[in-house]
């Protein structure tokens, strides 16, 4: 009896310790990630086709005293950095939501056709009205992203949406919209023969205007993702269990897909068809902080921001003073990761 008491106590002690450490881990990760993001951000402000000193970076960021530095740091590098981080975060969150809602580790906005739907809307809007301003492109993308998510839902809907059906429908939609985009680009003379930055995804020339244009979609997108994360947790237990716990499963799924549509559209409006960010980041996040979406989603956002801003930095430095489309770098990192996933994990 005495021995039993002792063993129970030590067990409780271990539990308490773990209970204390468990919420700390994501916090530590978050702190580390933010630090890394800060480092990448500072490097992005300093390095590029034109080399600046740290004092020029600081001056450019804070004052108008040095016009060259001001222009380069404040008008070119800083907005592009912010755009990149937000786009990465949006895609990371969209991927995490999709993987959660489909219960399918291969889900991401590109694979399920949401990116292509937004891109098609964007390309169509530009062909229809070559003079369209950036906010118009963003609005078209949002329409396209929501429509893509909606079509995905209704095609996959039969009583309830099974993960397998959702994935299959997504693959088909992705191919269809992708073909339509290429058709549009190659048949319209508004685009050059190959709009590489759009097709591969890139942040070339993105500026404050793009940030203003995508904010109306990013804000509700991120808010919605945070609010839906608890429901997504419950949804992960299966439809019947989730309904039993009071989650309106189909309505929740529709809401999640709408949020995915908005976030993806914001990214596409600014950076074109960036792929693999939404696939890789949630996986890394799940690997490091586990499956609780309330933690997983913010961490996916962080990883997405890190991935895109680092990829963009690499895109600018690899063949400096010229540059590559950033999407080529994310695909270069993401594709091998996908292959690894297919080969070594179930």
């Amino acid at each position, binding site marked *: 009896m005495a021995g039993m008491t002792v063993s129970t106590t030590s067990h409780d002690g271990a539990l308490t310790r773990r209970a204390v450490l468990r919420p700390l881990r994501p916090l530590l990760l978050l702190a580390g990630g933010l630090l890394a993001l800060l480092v990448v951000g500072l490097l992005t402000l300093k390095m590029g086709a034109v080399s600046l000193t740290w004092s020029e970076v600081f001056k450019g960021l804070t004052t108008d005293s040095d016009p060259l530095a001001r222009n380069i740091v404040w008008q070119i590098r800083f907005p592009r950095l912010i755009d990149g981080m937000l786009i990465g975060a949006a895609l990371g969150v969209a991927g995490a939501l999709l993987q959660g809602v489909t219960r399918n580790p291969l889900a991401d906005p590109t694979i399920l056709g949401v990116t292509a739907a937004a891109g098609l809307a964007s390309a169509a809007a530009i062909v229809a009205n070559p003079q369209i301003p950036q906010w118009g492109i963003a609005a078209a993308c949002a329409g396209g992203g929501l429509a893509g998510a909606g079509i995905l839902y209704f095609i996959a809907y039969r009583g309830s949406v099974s993960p397998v059906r959702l994935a299959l429908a997504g693959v088909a939609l992705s191919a269809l919209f992708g073909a339509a985009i290429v058709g549009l680009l190659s048949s319209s003379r508004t685009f050059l023969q190959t709009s590489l930055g759009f097709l591969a995804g890139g942040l070339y020339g993105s500026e404050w205007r793009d940030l203003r244009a995508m904010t109306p979609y990013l804000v509700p997108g991120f808010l919605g993702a945070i609010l839906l994360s608890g429901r997504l947790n419950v949804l*992960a237990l299966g439809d*019947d269990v989730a*309904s*039993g716990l009071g989650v309106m499963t189909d309505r929740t799924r529709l809401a999640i897909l709408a949020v995915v549509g908005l976030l993806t559209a914001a990214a596409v409006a600014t950076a074109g068809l960036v792929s693999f960010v939404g696939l890789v980041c949630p996986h890394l996040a799940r690997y490091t902080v586990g499956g*609780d979406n309330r933690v997983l989603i913010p961490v996916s956002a962080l990883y997405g921001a890190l991935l895109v801003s680092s990829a963009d930095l690499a895109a600018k430095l690899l063949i400096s003073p010229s540059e590559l489309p950033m999407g080529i770098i994310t695909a270069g990192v993401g594709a091998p990761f996908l292959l690894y996933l297919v080969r070594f994990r179930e």
Partner: protein
Amino acid sequence: MRLSVQSLSLSYGSRKVVNDVTFDVEAGEMVSIVGPNGSGKSTLLRGMSRLQKPSSGRVLLGDNDIRTIGARVVARHLAILPQSPDGGSDLTVRELVFRGRFPHQGLMQRITPADVVAVDWAMEAADVVVLAERTIGSLSGGERQRAWIALALAQQPRVLLLDEPTSFLDISHQVEVMHLLRRLNREGMTVVSVLHDLILAGRFSDRVIALSQGEIAFDGHPVEVLEPVGLERVFGVAMMVLRDPETGMPIPLPRPDPELCPVAHVEP
């Protein structure tokens, strides 16, 4: 809290599976629903929770129609454990049980002391405290079933519905689960389970409802209703009923076919 099933019909598409069924489950009852495959018993259980929308009729929880008072409100009073749930295998038991608090939590699912108390109680009651940090995927069938029951208990329901909670379990785990349900029932919880196993139904229920082709074939105390003629009509096989020498409760069994079943030669 009374659960009142009123003229409930349930369909899959155009196929009617449960046809105009009416009965009340009183607070504190332990009810087993039995019936052959395809008789509609699992569907009935889904209709009694919010998992399936009735094609006609309604289900009252207390005085309220469960389809009008909101999914989360229902989930605070009534928990349903579907048959062999498959999600959450990468979660620890504790994480899984915490998700049972969903209907009680606010917009951001912040954990309150009440949540911790409820989860601790649920894990205690379902006897999964020692498994708290194990992942669901690593548990045996019986342990896993207890973890899922703990999830349902964390909802702090007054009514607990279970769809075949003992299927795929070996005999010791079956007994373990039924004992757990009986204990919960003793503490005042209304328990309704769909059971395949007539012996378990006969031993542990206050009341057995048999379904046949979507309609109630019989409904009453096991001693009254578990008798050969009624069982034979429902299951379509010759039945006999023994008495448990210790409790006097019925033990229904299929009658042996003299052509096929071996016979023991024991001196009287």
